[in-house]
């Protein structure tokens, strides 16, 4: 897990939950609650709604904070510990704030053979962000190194929020994607 977490010293060890960042928002909107309840009704066991509900939480809260996990547990009616366990298991739930445009660069073998390592460095250089260190000061960019995005034939590929961009072999293509983000052509995070 590469997420930034609050300062921790050897004298004052934080409990796992305290390492998570807090969000401003504390509860779901009524629409989101209705959405989660509809999902719960689709499955034989309401617990199955945990993963979809965490996606809804990520959309509403901006990232999956401890409050978001509590809200999910509350709506579904399952233990908080269960939701905490699930949210921290899966990497697509961001446990810390991300930028408006979250770059997920695949650096696995097929992409690496076509220059993904260099691409990741270029993304970091152009956005001024180090992976795992939170978003850029203006809140615009964040970068994450991810494992295979199943775009091996069009490597190297990058996922920006929910959209995948492939064959970013030369820097111009990366600049193009970044410019489009700035212009507002792509949907920002959590929208």
């Amino acid at each position, binding site marked *: 897990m590469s997420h930034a977490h609050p300062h921790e010293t050897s004298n004052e060890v934080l409990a796992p939950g305290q390492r998570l960042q807090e969000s401003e928002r504390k509860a779901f909107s009524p629409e989101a609650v209705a959405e989660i309840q509809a999902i719960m009704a689709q499955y034989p066991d309401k*617990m199955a709604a945990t993963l979809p509900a965490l996606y809804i939480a990520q959309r509403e809260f901006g990232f999956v904070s401890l409050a978001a996990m509590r809200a999910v547990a509350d709506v579904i009616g399952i233990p908080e510990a269960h939701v905490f366990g699930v949210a921290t298991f899966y990497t697509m739930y961001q446990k810390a704030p991300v930028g408006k445009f979250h770059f997920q660069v695949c650096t696995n*073998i097929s992409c*690496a*053979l076509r220059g993904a390592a*260099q691409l990741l460095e270029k993304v970091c250089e152009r956005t001024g962000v180090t992976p795992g260190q939170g978003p850029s000061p203006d809140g615009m960019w964040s970068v994450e190194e991810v494992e295979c995005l*199943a775009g*091996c034939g069009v490597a190297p590929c990058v996922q920006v929020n929910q959209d995948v961009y492939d064959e970013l072999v030369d820097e111009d293509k990366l600049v193009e994607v970044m410019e489009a983000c700035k212009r507002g052509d792509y949907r920002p995070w959590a929208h």
Partner: protein
Amino acid sequence: MAAIRTKPDHHTYTFPGFGSEKFPNLMLRGAGDLNNWHLKVYEQQHEGYVAMRKALQTEPVAVIDEVKASGLRGRGGAGFPAGLKWSFMPKDTPERKLTRYLVCNGDEGEPGTFKDRVILEYNPHQLIEGMIIGGWAMQCAMGYVYIRGEFLWLIEKLEAAIQQARDAGYLGKNILGTGWDYDILVYRGAGAYICGEETALLNSLEGRRGEPRVKPPFPAVKGAFGQPTTVNNVETLAAVPPIMRMGGAEYAKIGSPKNSGTRIFGVSGHVKRPGIYELPMGTPMNFLVEELAGGSSTGRKIKAIIPGGASCPMLDEKDFDVPMDFDNLKARGSMGGSGGLIVMDESVCIVQATLRLIRFYAHESCGQCTPCREGCNWMQLVLHRIEHGQGRPGDLDLLASLTPRIGMRTLCPLGDAACGPMDSALQKFRHEFEHHITHKTCYATGSRLLSNVGAH
């Protein structure tokens, strides 16, 4: 919500002769055409839902027999006969009516594999049709499609396609007057490679951490939500409609003995035309790499090929002629895996490549079994120091001693998968590791597979 994509992928799907009798096109019909996912296109141009109608007029057990006769083997990696798997599902007895589920595994995460993505993008109705036939054969109450979280646009496309099938009366209550109720739900994963393992997938589908379960009980006895369940790969289910259409015996004639049918191979890495190629099983590997994919893209000689996704042991030059099917690849010490070929040229440092692969397994280990969780991390640490010029003389023996302590000692095959590349690299390219330890630098020059910015 992501919109339906308007930009096609630029990989190659076709080649001269594709679609002829020699290279039948059973699963990639209309690939490359983004309008191909509509129900009416599938029905009018690709014999869509013909197989489903045929199956629904047949007894369920006869459908299973047809799939058994076809010799179809699971395309997810293990190559288990699909018909046999279907026949493991318990039947209703007069005393007890069971709720059975069919789960489709679309958690495509194996590095080098990108075949399910193509089926979902261009031919989702063939998967839906396969799921209806499978659901009928096993008399399932529900079908679930578990798709990896990154494929949001494909999930939305599949949901739209499912709605079209519902509107046409192919899903829902009393399908085509048979009195059988069946529907399909799509479930979105959240970024865990381990959820491609069937019991981890079932845990994830139930809203839990994706940790593999202890087997037995096998999913056919106690699967999703505690009910009998069969888990099949996207490609396996997409192969079912052609089988029903042409008949199992006819399908069995394609491919090599005991490895029937066509398979979707993905080629990535140092080739001129990376992409997706549907070929009969048993097609020689060098034909695919040299003729179809165009050979080395860099002009350098090809040094190693991983024949079926990152988990498969690497092959070197002497094995490039291997016929690609489960049995032949196994005989050469590798695996059929998920059909994703990763081609590496001479400039690639095998130590770096192995470190990159092992880092993946160390990151994706769910942490449940100690041998895999600790073993993968230790392999990563030792490889890391070799790569960074701090290798010690005993390191290679240390690495070789680690793999037998991981393989076959874990609940699921992730630990074994990590041992595949490690063992084969040590065995076939030992001199590169030794060069690294003695000279503190790469044997092959020019490759840089690892970035300087912090790893996760």
